[in-house]
């Protein structure tokens, strides 16, 4: 079941095509990574989902319904460019923003106090926003985004400006929201957090989807078939090199061990068979497959497309 489906979205600004037939299928209860280099069209897409702007063509469905004003209360959005009214008091402002998301004043106040206590910022309730540190302001923005318990949360670069401690706090909260059943769309350049949090991703480049799917599938797709072996003592490398199913890429002697980097050339051979073959040549003390990081995949895909 998709909570959000965007079909063939096109958005044009004057002479610039921001989105060119982009599709998005976000499964309910998943964390969805929306990736792409700067200017790829991520923010344009997010604004369309938030109904800040309308697409020139294409349709967006929310829980199977065509996106409309009623859905605003079911979405929480933390934009990349975010801020608060500087001269307004923290509490007042948080209540105001919560009311705009459809909460009643009393309800908003009670929930806010809970969250403020949890995030250790309750003493700042009556202070003006300009007196707060950037980190505290970010906490308030985060609270206001999730306060109305939206079904879909959209975080655009949520970790920028957070120190590692607060970034961790945020990650924990995001995961706990997921456990409570919320769906999260997550746009970032921070590939580590993508690997940590995301179930599915879409990579947008130059206004188009270039890669979509489950994170594990994509990683599989970008499998390098390269394995690292460590042997005790010396290994007869020449012997191994005679196999045509795999190839030695690297061969190093380190502190009485031999490290081999081997590329599997024949897809029909399983890792077990590979290990079996190599075991004949020495005593293996460690083995691992080189899995590409999201960072590598990102760069690879973008650069490849750029060359094309």
């Amino acid at each position: 079941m998709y909570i959000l489906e965007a079909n063939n979205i096109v958005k044009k600004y004057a002479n610039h095509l921001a989105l060119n037939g982009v599709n998005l299928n976000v499964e309910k209860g998943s964390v969805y990574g929306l990736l792409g280099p700067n200017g790829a069209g991520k923010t344009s897409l997010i604004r369309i989902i938030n109904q800040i702007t309308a697409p020139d063509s294409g349709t967006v469905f929310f829980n199977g319904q065509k996106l409309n004003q009623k859905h605003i209360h079911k979405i929480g959005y933390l934009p990349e460019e975010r801020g608060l009214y500087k001269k307004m008091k923290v509490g007042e402002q948080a209540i105001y923003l919560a009311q705009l998301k459809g909460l009643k004043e009393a309800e908003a106040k009670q929930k806010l106090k809970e969250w403020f206590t949890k995030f250790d910022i309750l003493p700042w309730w009556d202070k003006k926003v300009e007196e707060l540190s950037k980190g505290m302001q970010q906490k308030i923005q985060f609270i206001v985004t999730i306060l109305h318990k939206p079904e879909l949360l959209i975080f655009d670069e949520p970790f920028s400006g957070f120190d590692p401690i607060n970034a961790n706090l945020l990650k924990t909260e995001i995961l706990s929201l997921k456990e409570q059943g919320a769906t999260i769309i997550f746009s970032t350049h921070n590939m580590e957090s993508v690997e940590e949090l995301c179930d599915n991703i879409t990579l947008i480049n130059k206004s188009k989807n270039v890669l979509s799917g489950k994170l594990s599938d994509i990683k599989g797709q970008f499998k390098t078939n390269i394995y690292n072996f460590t042997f005790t003592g010396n290994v007869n490398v020449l012997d191994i090199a005679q196999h045509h199913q795999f190839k030695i890429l690297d061969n190093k002697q380190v502190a009485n061990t031999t490290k081999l980097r081997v590329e599997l050339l024949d897809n029909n051979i399983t890792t077990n068979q590979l290990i079996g073959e190599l075991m004949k040549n020495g005593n293996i003390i460690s083995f691992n497959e080189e899995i590409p990081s999201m960072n590598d995949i990102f760069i690879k895909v973008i650069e490849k497309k750029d060359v094309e």
Partner: protein
Amino acid sequence: MNKIILIIKREYLTRVKQKSFLIMSIVGPILMAALMIVPAWLAKMDTDKVYNIAVVDQTKRFSDTIVDTGYITNIRLKNQKPDEKKMFIRRLPDSKNYKFSFVDTLYKTKYINKFDSLNYDVLVFIPNNILSSQAIEMYSDKEITLATKLYITNKIEKELEKEKLKAYGIDKPISVSIKVLSNIIDEDGKLSESNSEITMVLSILSGILIYFFIFMYGSQVMRGVIEEKTSRIIEVIVSSVRPFELMMGKIIGIAMVGLTQFLLWIVLTFALVTVAQSSFMPSNSQIVAQQLKSTNIMDGSQAEQEKIDDEQINEDINNAFKIVSNINWLLILSAFLFYFIGGYLLYASLFAAVGAAVDSEADTQQFMLPITIPLILGMVMIQSIVQNPDGDLAFWFSIIPFTSPIIMMARLPFSVPDWQVYLSMGLLIVTFILTTKFAAKIYRVGILMYGKKVNYKELWKWLKY
């Protein structure tokens, strides 16, 4: 709809709670009250000059008559005894500052032609039909002072009020207000009309006030939009409400701040003037006490004379305050409200569009120019409109919506034909609907646009998004 109310509430409350709002609410009424009190105070100071006034009284009503307690007669009795409580009274009695001479009704023109050689300061002409025309004429070689005008009109009004009461047999007070047609006699004996000072002051004041209100609150809208943009809160807000709702909420909220300020000004000014009035003048009970005292101590006629003198001084002051009551305040105030709201709505949306198009207040200049030019033009025009409130210039500028709030307000204290007022109002409404639509398009695009040097060509593109 619910959200637009939330926005209005926030815009209103954050501004009303500001110190600057409080300061403005206090300083404004003090200035306005001073404008009314100072002339009164000056009237009290200026007690030495004696005006010789020639009266051409066609009605014969205001020259010497005898009054007694029981009946009114036109027979002049001599050597009347004080205890009979009868005395001579003139409906236009001399006072310390005003000496009246009643001159032959046949020679009005002659007096005007020879005004130079005669030793009069003012010639007053009371026509036969005063009850219906409710107007008198005044001639002088100089501007006639407000105090003089008010002294004379006040006496005449009181007399006419009594006359009407008698005629209709009603016992509730009838208020009569007469108009003064003042004429300046130049050296060659030629006449030129001069407009009443009160009307002129009011005209200039309303024009300036409208300009001031539109500009002040219009630029508050602009600053509010820029604040939302630079603080980067805008994207959070527009993910909850539509940009048009946000813009209108802001515009309406600030309009209400303006109206609150205006209301406070009216109420506080009225309060200040009332306080000043009562401290300048003895209260009624004091007057009564004084009267009782003087009747007891002195013999009748002397006491009466004293009383009359006292009353005259008080009236001089009171007259100055009559500026307030003589004007059709209901018309002026309701027109002010209309033109403030109309003019403000027209300009505020444009100010909002400018705020949305720029990244900081420093960049607003190029877009502000076309908005401020008509406003400033209107402001500059007030001076010449006051001189000629029915001219072509006055007409066109009070019809064209971009200047009409200022110019029509400046024209209104003089009489303006109804159709012109309605036309001007109608056009203003149509125009602000159009400018709001136009501004909303720019606003919608501009609020999410950062770091782009925007020019008119760019704005034109936004209109077509």
